[in-house]
């Protein structure tokens, strides 16, 4: 953890610093293009000209080193699960995960007979926001990302976690 991370008891100064810090982290999360299946096409459509994601400042990055949010778009299979875990580890902190589509949330339409399908990506990596739909519309993905931004705003990185 950083030098001053989680060290301070909660008081007025630290609370204001927290607000500044979490605001700076939430403004424009660059997302890590992790499209595997049909949801990747909807993610592309969200990033393309009509539902422009870049007007919210969310820019697609293709390497985990430069990304804040990993959007798991599409079915994650067993063979891919080990790679997802590795890629999540290689992302720079602070990092968040959006599970886009019902395949990433719970295995989707392949949960019953999919011997090779991972039943939900939260078995392997911690997920912050689940976006339902198969595939979810680009507007649903944008709403999911905005929900993630609200969630980041409430974070308290500096105060010591009590209990």
């Amino acid at each position, binding site marked *: *953890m*950083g030098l001053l991370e989680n060290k301070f008891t909660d008081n007025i100064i630290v609370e204001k610093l927290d607000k500044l810090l979490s605001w700076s982290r939430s403004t424009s999360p660059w997302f890590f293009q992790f499209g595997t299946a049909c949801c990747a096409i909807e993610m592309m459509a969200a990033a393309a000209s009509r539902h422009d994601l870049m007007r919210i400042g969310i820019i697609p990055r293709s390497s985990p080193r430069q990304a804040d949010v990993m959007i798991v778009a599409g079915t994650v299979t067993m063979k891919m699960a080990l790679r997802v*875990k*590795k*890629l999540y580890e*290689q992302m720079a*902190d602070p990092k968040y995960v959006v599970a886009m589509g019902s395949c990433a949330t719970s295995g989707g339409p392949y949960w019953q007979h999919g011997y090779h399908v991972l039943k939900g990506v939260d078995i392997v990596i911690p997920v912050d926001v689940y976006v339902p739909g198969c595939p979810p519309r680009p507007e649903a993905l944008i709403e999911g990302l905005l929900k993630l931004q609200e969630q980041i705003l409430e974070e308290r*990185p*500096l105060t010591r976690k009590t209990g």
Partner: protein
Amino acid sequence: MYRDFGTVLFAVMLGIVMVAIPLVISWLIAPSNKTKDKLDTYECGEEAEGSAWLQFNIRFYIIALIFLIFDVEVVFLFPWAVVFKEMGLLALIEMGIFLLILIAGLAYVWVKSDLDWVKRKVKYGGGRYKSLTATTED
């Protein structure tokens, strides 16, 4: 006359400070957990096989050398070009000799065929890549 060196010093100091501030802040507050996986080389999600420290083809090194020489030559040209007008004909001749020597160097490198690149061997070449089609024996 030495007074204006102060501004240069100030500019350098300002540069150092402006870089140091974000680094210190991020050292203080940025979360950093250096797990083994994170420090692994990123290879599109796979374990990287083999090491990157292996013997590269020599042509990359030679091209880097040749580039360095001619880059330094251009660096010498800049100050000369700035004050060229006051110095008159003599400076032109001197710089001409300097350039001639380097052109002789270039000719030497060209003749020794250091500049021609390793050609690709393509199975189904066509059109302008016809010459690169791999003949059957190699």
